[in-house]
């Protein structure tokens, strides 16, 4: 008898989950035709479990505290910026609350709330990463941007775009490469990389007579990803390029770069 009771109680949230999924499907299927019911802004609401919740005027530790919400009162969470949340109290006051404080509030059903914060575990497991590096490309300056997608903690695929600014020629390079990290959970994580791409070289006409040319490149390299703080990564790498020129000899270029990246 009591077993059946438990089943009944359990089945209620499961039912709502199913119905919510159905509702979502319905909304998605009708998203082109009708959405007025969905357009209304709804905010997540939490109640204060600590003795009080401090609200600041801005999203930072340096902004002054101007209001306190008492224990038991509820607040609506309007939006988030980095680790700060804009909340609205029951009396209509809006202010910014730090993640650590908001973490100690309760959801309407009495459950504790969890807000994602970037940690070193995310450094290992995060899917997306983007960064900016600069350095030396065979004597010329190079500025690079990249985006990366992790297939698993060990293997990721990167796409690069670089501008090369030298004394005798300028150029562009785009490349795709695969990155292998042997110890992705280390704070200083070494990696190896292999890739290919295209380089566009534009000799400076006033100094060197030459035509613009586009060649294929291939490269191998190694480097370090270093977890700095929160979402920040420092990155240093060396790559050795082979440029498949249309002349008799292939060109070899060495590249050193340092920069920063962040994951999300």
């Amino acid at each position, binding site marked *: 008898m009591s077993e059946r009771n438990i089943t*009944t109680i359990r089945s209620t949230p499961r039912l709502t989950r199913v119905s919510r999924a159905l509702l979502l499907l319905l909304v998605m299927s009708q998203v082109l035709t009708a959405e007025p019911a969905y357009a209304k802004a709804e905010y997540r609401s939490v109640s204060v479990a600590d003795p009080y919740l401090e609200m600041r*005027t801005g999203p930072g530790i340096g902004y*002054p505290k101007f209001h306190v919400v008492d224990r038991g009162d509820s607040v609506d969470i309007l939006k988030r*910026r980095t680790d*700060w949340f804009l909340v609205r109290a029951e009396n209509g006051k809006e202010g910014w609350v730090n993640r650590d404080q908001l973490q100690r509030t309760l959801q*309407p059903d009495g459950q504790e709330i969890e807000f994602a914060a970037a940690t070193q575990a995310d450094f290992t497991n995060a899917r997306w990463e983007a960064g900016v590096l600069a350095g030396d490309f065979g004597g010329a300056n190079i500025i690079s941007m990249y985006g990366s997608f992790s297939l698993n903690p060990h293997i990721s695929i990167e796409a690069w775009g670089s501008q090369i600014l030298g004394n005798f020629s300028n150029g562009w390079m785009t490349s795709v490469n695969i990155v292998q990290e042997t110890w992705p959970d280390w704070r200083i994580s070494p990696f190896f990389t292999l890739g290919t791409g295209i380089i566009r070289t534009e000799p400076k006409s006033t100094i060197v007579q030459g035509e613009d040319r586009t060649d294929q490149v291939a490269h191998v390299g190694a480097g370090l990803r270093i977890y700095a703080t*929160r979402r920040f990564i420092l990155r240093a790498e060396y790559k050795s390029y082979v440029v498949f020129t249309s002349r008799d000899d292939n060109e070899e270029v060495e590249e050193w770069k340092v920069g920063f990246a962040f994951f999300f």
Partner: protein
Amino acid sequence: MESRFRLLFLVLPVFALGLGGCAATKNLFGRGNNSAPPPTAEDPGQVIDPDVERREIKEPKIDSENFEVGAYVGIMAVEDFESNIVYGARLAYHVTEGFFVEGTIGQTDAGLTSFERLSGGAPILSDSDRTFTYYNLNLGYNILPGEVFFGEGRAYNTNLYLIAGLGSTRFAGDDRFTVNFGVGYRFLLSDSIALHLDFRDHLFDIDLLGEDKTVHNLEGNLGMTVFF
């Protein structure tokens, strides 16, 4: 020994009987027709009808506003080439409350050098080469957060930021590796809209006027951004 055999002969038939009995109910080990729970007069599912209204648990996603996009207009002094109006656009991503990364693109027009003006001779650059276009990728850090007050009832959040980065400048027919750094003042009209007052120095090497030298190109601009 003998008693042990006797025990075995006693146990075996008892076990066999037991098995047979279970087989009769066809329910041992879940085998057989399992369809018949004892029928009851009413549905026992809802023994207690809860008189409590269940609270609807909604979990809307919290909107993240870590990006900042905007445009600016100002004055830029191109070394040796007069000062002119500069305009540009910026996109920033706030990684932490302190750090942000920013990309900017901007454009101004270089004027005449003093030499060109005084000699009245042939211009050093063609008009298209006088267009000064730059892009930068920067790292910024927010400092000195606080509030400013207008009268008794109005307060606005402000902060300063230090910023530096690398990029490229297209000027005088060439792309030039450019370092820039500066300081900015962010004035938040609301939680999502900000005014910026920004000062930057763009440095690059140029040998246009005979010798190789590092030039400082100072820029001051006023901009507006929106967080999203």
